[in-house]
């Protein structure tokens, strides 16, 4: 389980408009590319000083490629990061205010307290 890497993906994609669009339109391509080329980046460090050990589990990769925010919640991805990025990708389809945000919550209705642990 690599909750940290899930969060790192959500964090790094969310802050880059180009990556947000790529993740929205071609999630398989974007997740595969990101894991190969960006997952081991140490932020604020020179590219030659990357980490060597970070990779997704199959389950995590599948959840990301499937835009499966319910599974990401279950896996303990930070819900603020997931929500922010998914709003960026899918709010544009709203036909009334907060339509996507409410549907996002409704899809999680089967979770009771305590929610999955988000500690990394």
């Amino acid at each position, binding site marked *: 389980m690599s909750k*940290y890497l899930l969060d790192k993906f959500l964090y790094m994609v969310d802050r880059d408009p180009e990556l947000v669009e790529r993740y929205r339109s071609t999630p398989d391509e974007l997740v595969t590319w990101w894991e190969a080329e960006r997952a081991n980046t140490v*932020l604020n460090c020179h590219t030659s000083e990357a980490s060597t050990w970070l990779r997704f589990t199959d389950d995590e990769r599948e959840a990301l490629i499937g835009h499966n925010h319910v599974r990401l919640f279950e896996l303990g991805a930070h819900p*603020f990061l997931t929500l922010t990025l998914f709003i960026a990708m899918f709010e544009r389809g709203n036909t009334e205010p907060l339509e996507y945000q409410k549907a996002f*919550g409704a899809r999680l209705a089967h979770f009771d307290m305590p929610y999955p642990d988000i500690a990394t």
Partner: protein
Amino acid sequence: MASIVAVIASTHHPFYYRATTATGDDRPPFADEWERKILAFRETLTRANPDVLVMVGSDHFHQLWLDNMPQFLVGKAPFYDANWYNEEREFGLPRMLLKGQEDLSAHILRAGLDDGFDLAFSNELRIDHSVTCPIITLRPEADLPIVPIYTNIFAPPLPQPKRFVQLGESIRKIVESWPSHLRVAIIGTGHLSLELGGPRQFGPHGPDPEFDRRAVEWIATGDLDNCLREVTLDSLHSPGNATHGFMDFMLMMGVAGAGAKADHVDTLDLFHTMEAYFTWYPNGAPA
């Protein structure tokens, strides 16, 4: 020595700016009442005539990240750029540039370290809506120098609630010992009950109106005893999964002091969350 002319605690709702600048059909029905309450709240700061603002908030995974996460961080820089691409995208917030008050930053860092808080610092900090929302609501001219103080309410493990209160008490003492003639307002923002990215988000009210009612009572009356008795890191999950932001209100209760009744109290029951606004005048209300 410096004087603390106002202590202010508030929620920071990132939709305020867009809601109250919208016109015509785009203007939501609650915008007028919200704006009226904010203008009254703003007046409580204006009347205090501050020279410097200490701004307590929390970075929302913008500059501070899990590879290097401070618990409490003080900005010390001559300027602070503000707001981030994803805040422009989601909330329509404008980019801003705020001046820093480096002498007070240095004083808070030195005295805080000497008072038992191993404060982190940043000499280049881009601040986010936890600080810019209260600038927009309380001082939209954005003309006063600031000292930003960030707390970790977001990425567990978090400091205990009592530690937030103690830091607030320490900040009060430290600012009062700053050798300066300047008038300081200490402003902090947090949340009442709040759910983000979970099943209870974006309901017609905050996720736990009963928690909100008790929380407003604790803050308005300075009831730190009951607040600290009932609030734990575990208990804060129950009102909503982002309710740990309430600990920034607890920090501000520490600044205001145990038993200090707020001079201004107001709330607004909105979709998704309850808004709450508090002002204390430690030296008495300005004439």
